[in-house]
């Protein structure tokens, strides 16, 4: 021990060798910072300085270096570089590992920005286990270039290390060797120091992390992580999202106030239940999350040649119990967030802005996860793709989903015979195929048990490529856009057409079966193809999709509900549990009674921002525009949401469970 702690163990390279090391590390760090920023700017979206002009994008990325925020990224990269090189104690191998990480990060950042105009967030780390699925979504050329680049770097590094460590080392090789730390004590000290620095953001709380970032002049863009990354760099945005606040405590939160609320809404549910039935047994409520579905006719400026692409869904909307526009929180992605809202009945808009993915940030730690699924005896989810995204497997266990069918499922595998695509064999499973499996699940359900099903389709998921549907006649005529954009839009429209037809057939099939079925159908968000739409000017429109709650004949006869189809012409995804229970005319817990009151008395939450609502006429309102009564209801709703998600859980179990 004494020998280990001797002074010799803590010597290191000479000052000049440290400087050489610093020179290499800093050069790579600056380069990484510029390249990562390039991934933010070299995009089609046109926000801030985003451009497809290569020279302009490079120049803008270089200009980022004059922002104090750039120092944070440079420093983080430098510390990572030092950690890796000292760990492997081989300069070129260390450099190769660092460069590989940099390339992988660049590709991931570039692709996510391309699809959603959003950088990689900490919550996306749960997707690391879904490498197989992710690589399928990456631009093939970019993927090949990245793989070839990484292979070259590693082969080069191996050869250089061999050359440096050969017996007769030359001057340069000897100089490289002298840069490495040979003393164990110094190595451990450097490794500890760098590791602890890198780990600090992961153990610090949200406020401590923010204090560190503020030191580097962090400019938080609370509602837009894409803009946040453009201003602060994707590394800073990532760190800002590591530890998050789920929800800030609403004023007046206490045991006493929650007891009063419980009493109030128990009484309210009792009054509503006088006309409701305890009737879910033998019924099915099926949620269909239609991936990236929106009506192309409603996209500002878009004109195309071809038959009405959405005519069947529009007709179903007219025949539904409830229908209208859904206010999504995402654009080009964020499916799991919309899905969470539709199941839990909590809008994203009332959580803290730092809470960006409930399945990874909230569900694993929440006091209680009351979801509509809990009201059913059989609870299954179907997804014709891999199940590793968004931490769904763990999240589903927590919210009580019994079976999760995916193409990579071991225990519950999505059957291959329902994976037939439309058009090219490289496409995702067609909605027609997924609907067939959904129908099979409904028709084979136990007649005495209630059933909850959720299908998340894949057919219209990005990427969209030219000639994806060779039989399609849809041609985009306006606006004038680049050839690539035109082709992707045309492929998307063709995909919507196939969904439209398949959905009509699904509804026809369900109409004729004897089991009561209530179908909650919605498009989760816009696809990321309408890059010509200015999101600043069309914020509301670009977050509106279509939804309907349809009941088959058996369900209509069973529920005998008297509803107004336009009651929720604009709905938040969080309204769906209450609306579904209203459609089935089912009895309510105090929790769902509160949600029902929200759907009846509050305008819909605009989940793409905070503090805004959309009324039934499509007008955007701010919180200050609400009536006193509405403000009170909103406050009560927030109190309940806080108590169940991150508060003290004062509400009793009977508040949320039957």
């Amino acid at each position, binding site marked *: 021990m004494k020998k280990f702690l001797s002074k010799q163990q803590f010597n290191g390279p000479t000052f000049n060798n440290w400087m050489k090391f*610093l020179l290499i590390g800093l050069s790579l760090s600056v380069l990484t910072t510029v390249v990562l920023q390039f991934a933010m700017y070299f995009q089609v979206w046109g926000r801030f300085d985003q451009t497809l002009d290569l020279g302009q994008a490079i120049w803008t990325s270089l200009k980022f270096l004059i922002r104090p925020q750039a*120092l944070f990224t440079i*420093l983080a990269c430098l510390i990572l570089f030092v950690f890796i090189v000292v760990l492997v104690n081989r300069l070129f191998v260390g450099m190769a590992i660092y460069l590989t990480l940099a390339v992988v990060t660049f590709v991931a950042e570039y692709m996510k920005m391309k699809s959603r105009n959003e950088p990689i967030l900490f919550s996306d780390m749960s997707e690391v286990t879904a490498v197989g699925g992710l690589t399928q979504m990456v631009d093939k050329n970019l993927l090949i270039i990245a793989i070839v680049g990484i292979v070259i770097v590693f082969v080069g590094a191996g050869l250089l290390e061999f050359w440096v460590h050969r017996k007769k080392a030359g001057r340069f090789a000897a100089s490289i060797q002298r840069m490495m730390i040979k003393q164990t004590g110094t190595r451990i000290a450097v490794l500890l120091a760098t590791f602890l620095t890198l780990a600090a953001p992961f153990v610090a709380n949200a406020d401590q992390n923010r204090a560190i970032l503020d030191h580097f002049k962090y400019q938080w863009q609370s509602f837009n992580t894409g803009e946040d990354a453009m201003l602060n760099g994707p590394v800073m945005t990532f760190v800002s999202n590591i530890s998050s606040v789920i929800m800030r405590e609403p004023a007046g939160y206490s045991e006493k106030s929650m007891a009063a609320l419980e009493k109030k809404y128990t009484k309210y549910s009792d009054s509503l239940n006088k006309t409701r039935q305890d009737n879910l047994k033998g019924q099915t409520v099926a949620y269909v999350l239609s991936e990236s579905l929106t009506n192309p006719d409603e996209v500002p400026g878009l004109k195309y040649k071809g038959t009405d692409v959405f005519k069947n869904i529009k007709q179903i909307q007219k025949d539904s119990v409830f229908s209208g526009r859904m206010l999504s929180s995402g654009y080009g992605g964020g499916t799991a967030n919309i899905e969470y809202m539709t199941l839990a009945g909590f809008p994203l808009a009332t959580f803290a802005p730092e809470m960006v993915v409930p399945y990874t940030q909230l569900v694993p730690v929440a006091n209680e996860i009351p979801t509509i699924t809990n009201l059913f005896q059989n609870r299954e989810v179907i997804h014709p793709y891999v199940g590793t995204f968004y931490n769904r497997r763990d999240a589903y266990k927590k919210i009580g989903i019994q079976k999760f069918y995916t193409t990579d499922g071991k225990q519950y595998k999505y059957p291959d015979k329902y994976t037939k695509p439309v058009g090219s064999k490289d496409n995702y499973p067609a909605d027609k195929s997924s609907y067939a499996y959904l129908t099979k699940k409904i028709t084979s359900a136990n007649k005495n048990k209630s059933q909850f099903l959720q299908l998340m389709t894949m057919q219209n998921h990005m990427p969209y490529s030219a000639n994806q549907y060779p039989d399609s006649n849809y041609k985009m005529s306006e606006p004038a856009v680049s050839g690539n954009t035109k082709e992707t839009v045309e492929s998307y429209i063709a995909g919507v057409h196939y969904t439209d037809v398949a959905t009509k057939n699904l509804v026809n099939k369900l109409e004729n079966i004897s089991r009561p079925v209530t179908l909650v159908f919605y498009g989760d968000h816009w696809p990321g193809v309408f890059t010509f739409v200015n999101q600043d000017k069309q914020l509301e429109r670009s977050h509106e999709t279509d939804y309907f709650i349809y009941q088959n004949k058996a369900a209509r006869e069973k529920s005998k509900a008297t509803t107004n189809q336009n009651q929720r012409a604009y709905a938040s995804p969080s309204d769906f549990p209450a609306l579904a229970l209203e459609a089935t005319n089912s009895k309510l817990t105090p929790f769902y009674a509160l949600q029902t009151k929200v759907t009846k008395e509050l305008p819909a939450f605009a989940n793409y921002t905070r503090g805004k609502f959309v009324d039934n006429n499509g007008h955007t309102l701010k919180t200050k525009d609400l009536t006193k009564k509405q403000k009170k209801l909103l406050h009560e709703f927030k109190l309940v949401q806080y108590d169940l998600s991150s508060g003290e859980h004062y509400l009793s179990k009977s508040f949320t469970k039957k």
Partner: protein
Amino acid sequence: MVMNSKDKDRTVQILAGLAIIMLIFISIINPQDHSILYNFFTWLTWPTIFFIAGYYININLKIGQSIVLAIKRYLIPYLVVGLLMIVINKVVQLLQLNTWVNAPFPAMRTGLKALLYGNGTPVTTIFGFFDTGIGLLWLLMALFVGTILTVLIAKVKKVPLAILIVILLAGVGFYLATFIQIPWSLEPAFIALPFMLFGLYYHRLVNWSAGIATILAALLVNLTMSASTGLTMEVAYTPFWILGTLTALISLAGLVVIANKLVNSTLLAKLANLFINIGSYFSLSLAVFIFIKTMIPMNNYIGRILPAGMISFIIIWLLMLIISFVIKLGIVKTVNVVRDQKGD
């Protein structure tokens, strides 16, 4: 590189010349228009000046002797230049010569107050907000205070302990500067201690491994930092004090290596000598330049002849350098003559 005392002395003399040239540069450049260039030189100029002051501390002297020496080098020039500025300020006000000579103080009393407090710019002092500063003269006060502190720290035998004290005091300096400026440029002196200690230990160095890699690393580190921020020494401010101090030290190391290369270069011997001449009588050079910079509106003079731009900037820079140099030589000669006469 192996260094003998002669080489080190010449290295520091060259650094002194470079420091004067850089100080003139950052004093006349517009930081808003050329922020990166300005920032770049702030990371070099201030550390170099304090490094030189640290180098010239004689640790073999007793504390009392060192303090007397510091008073002669920095405090007396500070008071003399300060009082001269206040008196001239009054004359300028009385004769209304504002077009030709600056009058930085609204009144003699406020000038005197600023001189006694030692704040460079309007700041929040321990007595509340004070809207008048003594200008660049704060530098001499900070050098005086920094020298005394370094003399005391040098008495600590264990080097790691001395370094720890310096780091702590620098941290205190940066922290205090975030909300108040204490008298006698104490905070700039605190944050300058790492550079002064570097200067002090450089004096003792026999062998220092630093070469081209150090210069290149210094350049890259400095450029990276300069892109977004500089070192505002007079109010002891940089957004990242640990990073900032490291940047300044590495930049300084790079400049020391450059100066050392000049010492050993036969090709650039004349240039080295020019720098040595410019930097001779270092504290006097500083005092003279500070007086000229504060009182002479050189921009106005040149602005009447030439439009603002690169040429006028270079002319102002050269004029400042030449005038300071000539006045310094004049003072030195006069003092020498007086000394000789006394000796006779």
